[in-house]
């Protein structure tokens, strides 16, 4: 819980990641960029799952809506302005989350899980079954947005290194924003809702509004991740909204340890790294990955976020359990 004690490892982690472009290997720059995008995505979901107690199983919808928004809003032969498409994409996701939130937040627990899934599936089928975004084949984003402001271009998203640092900056910003948010009265209320919503109501909190606020915010940040994803890869497909993707990001959050922003980031890194590394070393990567996940659940209750604490306790020779 001591903010300063854990600051150093985080700074080191960010610094290490910031060194990735020095390798000059576009593949690594891109893949780490993707992991950073997923980290934003996971943090946005953790705001709901880990802090507000709202387990959304349809979070990919907001990722996907923003992803499609960039592709659809960008002109075919020209670059759109970053300062227009990014806010627009994020706002669309936020709007979708707000409207869907109005409905789904009436339910609780597992029912909430399923209704969020239902709405996400509807969004999925809209993109999959209609020609709107190229149907099941998806569509290309032919030109990455331009960051030019009145002719002056501070950085170029077409440059992979610039893009990488842009994403990294976004990730750090989202982290700082959420970390701060969670310490605010608003954040404390969310955590209170997770613990005992009924009690929060009888204390005079209009919990629905807070939950809707959190849901919309999470949708917006999920949208930010979706936006960055499209800019990074230039290709969108309905699968981005599928329940598999919603499940994957949920797994990242759980793997990292719910209710811990750094855990969500760690979960995203671990999840993507495992897929990457295991698929590299063997054709039977699923077996390895499945085995590791099962082992994590059995031996690391509380996910990766609990690991530093365990190490500390082991070093201090303190009480087990």
């Amino acid at each position, binding site marked *: 819980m001591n903010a300063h004690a854990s600051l150093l490892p985080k700074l080191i982690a960010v610094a290490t990641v910031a060194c990735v472009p020095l390798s000059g290997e576009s593949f690594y720059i891109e893949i780490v960029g993707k992991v950073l995008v997923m980290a934003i995505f996971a943090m946005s979901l953790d705001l709901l799952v880990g802090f507000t107690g709202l387990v959304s199983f349809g979070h990919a919808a907001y990722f996907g809506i923003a992803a499609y928004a960039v592709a659809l809003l960008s002109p075919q032969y020209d670059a759109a302005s970053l300062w227009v498409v990014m806010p627009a994409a994020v706002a669309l996701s936020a709007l979708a989350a707000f409207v869907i939130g109005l409905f789904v937040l009436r*339910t609780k627990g597992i*029912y909430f899980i399923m209704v969020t899934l239902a*709405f996400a599936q509807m969004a999925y*089928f809209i993109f999959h079954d209609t020609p709107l975004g190229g149907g099941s084949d998806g569509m290309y984003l032919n030109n990455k947005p331009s960051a030019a402001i009145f002719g002056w271009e501070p950085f170029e998203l077409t440059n992979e290194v610039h893009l990488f640092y842009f994403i990294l900056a976004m990730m750090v910003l989202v982290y700082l924003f959420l970390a701060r948010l969670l310490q605010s009265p608003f954040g404390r209320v969310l955590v209170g809702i997770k613990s005992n919503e009924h009690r929060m109501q009888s204390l005079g909190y209009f919990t629905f509004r807070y939950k809707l606020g959190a849901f919309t915010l999470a949708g917006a940040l999920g949208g930010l991740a979706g936006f960055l994803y499209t800019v990074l890869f230039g290709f969108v497909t309905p699968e981005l909204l599928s329940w598999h993707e919603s*499940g994957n990001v*949920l797994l990242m959050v759980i793997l990292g340890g719910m209710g811990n922003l750094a855990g969500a980031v760690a979960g995203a890194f671990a999840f993507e790294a495992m897929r990457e590394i295991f698929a590299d070393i063997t054709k039977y990567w699923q077996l390895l990955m499945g085995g590791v*996940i099962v082992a994590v659940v*059995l031996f690391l209750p509380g996910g990766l976020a609990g690991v530093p604490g365990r190490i500390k306790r082991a070093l201090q020779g303190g009480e087990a359990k």
Partner: protein
Amino acid sequence: MDFASFLIQTLNSLQYGLLLFLVASGLTLVFGIMGIINLAHGSFYMVGAYLAFVLSSATGSLVMAIVLGIPLALVFGAILEWALFSHLYKRDHLEQVLLTYGLILIFEQLRSLLVGDDVHGVAIPAFLDASIQLTEVMSYPVYRLAISAVCVALAVALYHVIQRTRLGMMIRAGNDDRSMVESLGINIDMIYRVVFALGVALAALAGMLAAPISSVFPNMGSQVLIISFVIVVIGGIGSVWGALVAALIVGFADTFGKVLIPELSGIVVYVVMAVVLLWRPEGILKKG
């Protein structure tokens, strides 16, 4: 739609609904009653289907395959519970999500290694391999009707066990407060093991029964997973009748959705779920 077609579509809906209930029945037990969020339900279904394929190839009969397969599935379920799930009851429910996701990967890969990635068929037992003429061009396979009968029997049996027997009461109580059940001198660990094994066996049975009509293929589990959860949840978690009603509703919605609004048929099921849950936030029949 002419009247005859309407009747046949109604029959289709019923039959599909009952099939969905069969597929979801194991989940009703493991998730609905025991409260385990089991994403590997689809894998157990797949295990059943492949057991049906392997065993019926070996023995030459689906009936034999089922007779041999059920005990295997029970043992398999009990071992899983002992080795994995029993450690998770006291933890956050979402860790079960992680665990069962890991299991999906493992089972899928093992399936590929052991049986390969081809699509297989399973023969309908000879005594059921007939059909009933409905219209001059269309007939209805007896096997499908037989499965429907099994589903109804299963629903009644499941309801009876869960609602009417002491075992059922203990299981439900265990989901409320495990240590209290233990304090009453009941070996809840053993009960949970047995019930989990039963849930696995039910899922496997569904796979075995469905194998002849759905064929046996990679990833077949993931196709039934979501729909099973949808059914258990719309029905009201923990309610067998609810699951049955939900399965029938989904059966009707899907069947008539395909006929009447084909453009939207992909989302019909989800619209139904959203509407039901917004109307009754705890499912159609909450408990009992």
